[in-house]
């Protein structure tokens, strides 16, 4: 019989290649634990409903909503956040492209955009404006109108 627990559980999360052992309540979302327990505040929360995409992280290489997962579920999975996509010094080629193309204004959607765009680029498929827009359609941005984000992603693919 599986053990039921309403009490906090201790889990080990692998985030950005590092193991973190944390004690969490089952109801704490991955987004909240990343931000408030691990101090990885680059993952943003904009709706807690799966719509806005600001909280997108990579789980085993694929984009997923950290507001719709619980930290207790994540043992044995590899999580990558925007912090993990950022080189120790300077910017990644994708971040560079965002900078060059003015693909961010307030920057709140940016981490989620970068995460989704990274997953897209990692697929190594040829991109068209249409496929890029489709892949990013689950990441809302209220500032940029998307055009420069699309340009940046397409340019980053060229640069890869």
């Amino acid at each position, binding site marked *: 019989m*599986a053990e039921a627990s309403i009490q906090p559980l201790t889990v080990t999360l692998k985030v950005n290649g590092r193991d973190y052992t944390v004690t969490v309540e089952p109801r704490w979302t991955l987004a909240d634990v990343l931000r408030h327990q691990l101090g990885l505040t680059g993952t943003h929360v904009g709706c807690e*409903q799966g719509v806005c995409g600001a909280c997108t992280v990579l789980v085993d290489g694929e984009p997923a*909503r950290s507001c719709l997962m619980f930290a*207790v579920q994540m043992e044995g999975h590899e999580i990558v956040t925007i912090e993990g996509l950022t080189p120790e010094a300077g910017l990644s080629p994708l971040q560079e492209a965002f900078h060059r193309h003015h693909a961010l204004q307030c920057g709140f959607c940016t981490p989620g955009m970068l995460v989704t765009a990274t997953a897209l680029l990692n697929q190594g498929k040829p991109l068209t404006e249409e496929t890029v827009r489709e892949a990013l359609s*689950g990441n809302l941005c209220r500032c940029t109108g998307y055009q420069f984000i699309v340009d940046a992603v397409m340019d980053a693919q060229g640069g890869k």
Partner: protein
Amino acid sequence: MKPAPFGWIRAHSVAEAVAALREHPEAKVIAGGQSLVPLLNFRLSRPSHLVDINPLETSLNQVEWSGSALTLGALVRHQRLAEHPVVRERVPVLSRAASHIGHWAIRVRGTLGGSISHADPAAELPAAMVALNAVLVAQSADGTREIPASEFFQGYYTTALQADELLTAVRIPAPEGRWGFAEVARRLGDFALAGAFVQRGSRVAVTWFGVAGAPVRVELTEVPADAREREVAWRQALTTAVGSDLEVAKVAQAVAVAEKAWSEAQ
């Protein structure tokens, strides 16, 4: 917007999962969490426990073609359904429909079993099950039973599944004839305003979603060759099935998607 407290049960086997459901009548299964967690966050759902079946991923994500039927595990994620070569070859309309669900990050997590059990009236996969005449396999502490899709969906978010049952798999018989799928939504990835599967074979059938509390399947004995007459036929089929108090816009959209799915099934 934070969930109320709940207990956490990690299921390591189907037996464990169904035992937990039996023991905790207020428990809920969590699969992809893409429908359940928003409800938890809004505190619209307050289960005593969550039974996490994700640890069963390896045993519940089969995609198997037997020669006469396709069997899919409950934990097959939408994205995999959309991309899997066997699904694309044997039941292409299903992978097309799956690619219309939400956005990439939602499809990566959301599961076939979750979508079917959740039974959103505007969801693609429940309608696909009805259209494709699927058989749904449910398991509880008492054993396994098979439920035809036509009897499974009973209304808004209501299914034939008992609270202590786990949906483990679906079996789709080899589809006969040519198939089309179409939907209309406000934005890419939104739940459909209306959608339709159309089968053109020895018989013609249209299965709508987004027009009533559950998917609606109608068989047509005759489908006119003339587009205008066909439109009338779709409209009649719809009214026969769901009555005449649908909003005008809804009727127009349902007719439009049926027609589009029909022409795709050429």
